[in-house]
């Protein structure tokens, strides 16, 4: 019991702290982010590559969001196990509503980077919402700002994520904290130390682990496989078992789940009953999540921008360069051997001394000499740059080594 109370308190303090830090880092991010389909990704990529506080703030924001989902859940769980939900139903309802708002913030924030994950993930989420009979399509239209994804979608998500939902969550939080602050029953000092430690840990994590950012959204891509965030994998996996009636996942389960969540204070549950219910839920969650991860073990990993662009460069090399430049860049591909072409050796140190990046860029873009064709209309400038990076990392010999 003591332990549960401590968990409830600690997770509660952490949740409030994370929420505050999320608001603060969000205000910071707003100064460098443009909520427009044309510029959203570029603005985030700019700060990511510039390094420094912009990159740090985004990492912090992303990790804190995961932390809040977890801490909020632990707080609710401990509250329930202690029976505090039945003793103070109003507090329970407030806390549960707040948690739902937080999930809403995750949902809307997910689209903002406009990378592949954001775009395809949101398409699928909205699609799942639409499978709910009657209410689904209008709800999805309201979120999207139209019957299909359009120029107004991102601004709407941004408005919800940065203004409407945080304001609502802030109000609920103030309401929830009122009795705590008024009675002053809590001894604050140890919690304050705890919160400070949490902040430091979050800062360290954000500095050490950059938030992921994939390739920019490509609506014409036909290879990307969308997957939900870790906290919704269980629902994704559950959906696989009810394929005949997809709206069990999108309507029945959410409504039943919400109903149960808000009705909990009225259920005559003793300690054993509560423990049983909580254990079942956690076990089901873990099992479904593990199954989802297991079944996806063969999916290609989701690469960050920098690595994805190099991986794509490798494909481009295969497609456009291999025939002449050869497998190891020696210039001994099938074509050049057959026709005895004059092809440079990328694996020679001399090549890299004699040619700089600008020269190579121009050669790939506009062609060079008799035999090197121009690729300017096949490869975008970013792709050409990536290709050069690929050549350099794969073929250039280590100097002095």
């Amino acid at each position, binding site marked *: 019991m003591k332990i549960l109370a401590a968990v409830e308190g600690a997770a509660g303090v952490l949740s409030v702290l994370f929420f505050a830090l999320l608001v603060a880092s969000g205000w910071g991010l707003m100064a460098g982010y443009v909520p427009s*389909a*044309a510029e959203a990704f570029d603005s985030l990529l700019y700060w990511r590559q510039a390094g420094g506080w912009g990159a740090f703030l985004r990492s912090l924001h992303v990790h804190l969001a995961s932390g809040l989902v977890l801490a909020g859940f632990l707080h609710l769980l401990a509250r329930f196990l202690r029976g505090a939900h039945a003793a103070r139903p109003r507090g329970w309802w407030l806390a549960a509503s707040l948690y739902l708002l937080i999930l809403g913030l995750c949902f809307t924030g997910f689209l903002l980077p406009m990378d592949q994950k954001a775009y*395809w993930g949101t*398409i*699928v*989420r*909205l*699609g*799942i*919402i*639409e*499978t*709910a009979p009657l209410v*689904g*399509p209008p709800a999805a*239209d*309201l979120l*999207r*700002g*139209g*019957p*299909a*994804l*359009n*120029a*107004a979608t991102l601004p*709407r998500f941004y408005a919800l994520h940065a203004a409407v939902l945080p304001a609502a969550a802030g109000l609920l939080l103030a309401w929830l904290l009122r009795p705590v602050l008024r009675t002053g029953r809590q001894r604050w000092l140890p919690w304050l130390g705890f919160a400070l430690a949490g902040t430091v840990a979050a800062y360290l994590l954000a500095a050490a682990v950059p938030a992921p950012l994939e390739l920019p959204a*490509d*609506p*014409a*891509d*036909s290879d*990307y*496989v*969308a997957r939900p965030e870790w906290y919704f994998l269980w629902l994704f996996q559950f*959906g*696989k078992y*009810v*394929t*005949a009636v*997809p709206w069990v996942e*999108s309507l029945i389960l959410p409504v039943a789940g919400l109903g149960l969540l808000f009705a909990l204070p009225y259920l005559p549950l003793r300690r054993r009953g509560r423990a049983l219910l909580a254990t079942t839920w956690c076990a089901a969650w873990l099992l479904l999540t593990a199954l989802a991860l297991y079944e996806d073990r063969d999916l290609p990993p989701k690469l960050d921008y920098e690595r994805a662009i190099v991986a794509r460069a490798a494909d481009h090399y295969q497609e456009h360069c291999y025939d002449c430049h050869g497998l190891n860049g020696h210039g001994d591909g099938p074509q050049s051997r057959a026709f005895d072409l004059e092809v440079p050796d990328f694996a020679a140190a001399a090549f890299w001394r004699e040619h700089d990046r600008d020269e190579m860029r121009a050669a790939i873009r506009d062609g060079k000499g008799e035999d090197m064709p121009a690729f300017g209309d096949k490869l975008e400038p970013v792709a050409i740059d990536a290709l050069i990076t690929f050549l350099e990392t794969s073929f250039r010999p280590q100097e002095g080594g």
Partner: protein
Amino acid sequence: MHLGDRTMTRRRFLELWQTLLAALAGAAALPPALFWWRSARLPAGPEEGTWADLGRARRLKEGQWVARSFAVERRDRWRQETLREVVYVRRRGEGFDVVSSLCPHAGCRVRPRDDGGFVCPCHRSAFDGDGRPLEGPSPRPLDPLPWKVEKGRLVVRHQRFRSGVAERQVVEG
């Protein structure tokens, strides 16, 4: 009595303030709410539809699905953009089959299978060679697209459909 009267007046006064405040909040919330609601009802694409050139009709293989991508210029609300799209095409004698590559379940892109059918990597909806659903959550067959042959070239209409519903409903183009 005098005192009581005064309390009454004061309570009334407070009630009046509360009503006023609520009215004010409502008045503040109504226009934005109406904007959100009304602007979601705007159509997403141009009414006349956009047609895209898929190349010489004769070049397509008989009886085999191939992926074709195209790009069309269009106006999306305030934004002029190049929309890129992928469709599957198959020649059948003089005619063609063209289907959208977007899964009717939730909008991922389906892929062709070796057996001539399609499969969706998101929730494993599978379709036969004619786009009919075999298993998985897809509520309807793959969506056929209108096409015509103009001067020997195959032209298709860009369209998107609402996902997740059994009845086919055009939402774009």
